């Protein structure tokens, strides 16, 4: 089954006369377990596409099925439900500054509190071990390096066993080597746990981690729409 299936997806910013089309009838599918990179020049609509897939924006036209849920015409509750099954990695780690690393990771599990507190923390610690900073579990983000913070963010995005991981320029705030290391880590964990990963990036140095590279230009997909 495809983790993402998009057809005829069109998106505009603004209304009426001043509406600015950003995505033009996109077709794209991402198979479960695939690691896909999305590249393209600035302003080509990559982030817009990512936020639509993640249920962070309402779909205007076309179809966008994520993890089996159609997002076209979906209400806020449906989009919230989809978000809970997605793991996000942001350009700037976006960790909660007032929580320790393990508490940040546990936040991914608190959203629908099925697990007990002890299990949440145990899972968080295991995830931090998996990203190689188990010793920093009780550190606050302010005391971590950029690479360490992004590792915590990766642990957080994986902790709730999401069906899909969405990342937007996750290496932008990191130096080349750290960026590559963290992306390799993400790819390895995704493969081990059979997670689907969709990464928007400008960074050609991480192309080697992808199963497939999709290229966008001016709101059109020009390469790699289908495996």
């Amino acid at each position, binding site marked *: 089954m495809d983790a993402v299936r998009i057809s005829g997806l069109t998106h505009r910013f603004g209304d009426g006369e001043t509406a600015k089309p950003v995505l033009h009838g996109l077709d794209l599918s991402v198979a479960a377990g695939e690691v896909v990179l999305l590249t393209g020049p600035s302003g080509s609509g990559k*982030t817009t596409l*990512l*936020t639509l897939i*993640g249920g*962070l*924006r309402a779909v205007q036209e076309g179809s966008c099925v994520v993890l089996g849920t159609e997002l076209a015409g979906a209400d806020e509750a449906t989009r*919230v*439900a989809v*978000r*809970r*099954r*997605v793991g*996000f990695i*942001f*350009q700037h780690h*976006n960790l*909660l*500054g*007032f*929580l320790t690393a393990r*508490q940040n990771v546990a*936040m*991914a599990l*608190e*959203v*629908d*509190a*099925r697990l*007990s507190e002890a299990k949440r923390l145990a899972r968080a610690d295991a995830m931090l071990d998996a990203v190689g900073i188990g010793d920093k579990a009780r550190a606050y983000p302010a005391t971590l390096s950029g690479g360490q913070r992004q590792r915590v963010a990766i642990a957080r995005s994986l902790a709730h066993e999401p069906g899909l991981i969405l990342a*937007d320029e996750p290496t932008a705030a990191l130096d080349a080597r750290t960026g590559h290391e963290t992306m390799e880590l993400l790819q390895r964990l995704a493969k081990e746990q059979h997670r689907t990963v969709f990464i928007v990036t400008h960074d050609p140095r991480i192309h080697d981690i992808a199963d497939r590279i999709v290229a966008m230009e001016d709101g059109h997909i020009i390469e790699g729409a289908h495996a």
Partner: protein
Amino acid sequence: MALGGVQGRGPRVFLPFRLAWRQLRHEKSRLAAAISGVVFACLLIFMQLGFMTALFESAVQVQKSLHADLFLMHSTTEALWRSTPFPRARLAQALAVPEVERVAPIYVQNVVWRNPKTSLKRTLLLFGVDPTSGVVGFPGLTADGLAAITKPDVILFDARAKPEFGAVSSWLAEGPVVSELGNRRVEVAGLFEIGATFGSEGNALTSEANFWRFVPNHTPAQVNVGAIMLRAGADATAAQAALRHILPDDVMVLTKPELIAFEKTYWANTAPVGFIFGLGVVIGLIVGCVIVYQILFSDISRHIGEYATLKAMGYTNGYLVRVVMGEALILAVLGYVPGWILGLGLYELASARIFIPLTMTVEKSIGVFALIFGMCVVSGLLAIRKLKDANPADMF
């Protein structure tokens, strides 16, 4: 089964509250500032309410220490200190009601007292009663004192009168105090404790015979308050109804709680006391509200990215509302506890230093907590509008 609760409603409230607490405690100095704001509001409200209730209580000190079942006053009387006298015959008529055992008149008049040291003249409220009637139970009265006022030109003095009357109680410890009351030589033979009220700066007590000497234009036939003692086991409301039936309309018949309420109502309506202190309470609430709102609003603004991230992770707006309301309620509790303790301290201080007995009652404690709680809820409700600015799509 406890786990069932945890998995049901529990986490919906507990987890956002815990997040709120973690966010608050992360920045200790901001937390301290927020708490001091609530403490300040708390203290302001406690002091305003304290003084207000103290003044109202002091206004009815005299009424509270009168021992009788029913009271007669002239129907045009508005307050004790300016009571219209009624004919003494009404008391005799009251005796016709079978429940009535005995009656006692109380005479009240403002009289000028001369401070023997400074020669300053000030008006006090003089009470004339039969000392053997047992009607007047002013705090601090002694049997010796009551016996002494049967002698001519002898009074008992209010130890807690304003200091302008003179340090009568300490002079009395050294020897007899002699001065002038109503342009007549007077000797103070003892003390009692009432203190200044709205209507008088000090009080004095004497026998009926002495009262007429000090207030020559007040005839014995004109009574200010009639005290009625009922037979043991008599029904006060029935007796009250019977008295109302047989007595003409120029007097009203009140039970003791009614007498107290009557006087309080007069002061609540006449003096702008209720309004002034009420205003103080409102100002305290507004100040507290603004402080808590500021803290919450700037907290949301500064954490807007974190809130948006939580929304992207699938947290609902309602969850974040609970986080902010959690912060508001935590501030209410954390501010109230030291506010209550400091309030108690200030009450003790006020009672010891300025002789205004401020008392911390359960009702006052609960009432102020409810106000502070409401204040924080309002602040939180105002602040949560800011959460709308947390848009998860902007996080990329």
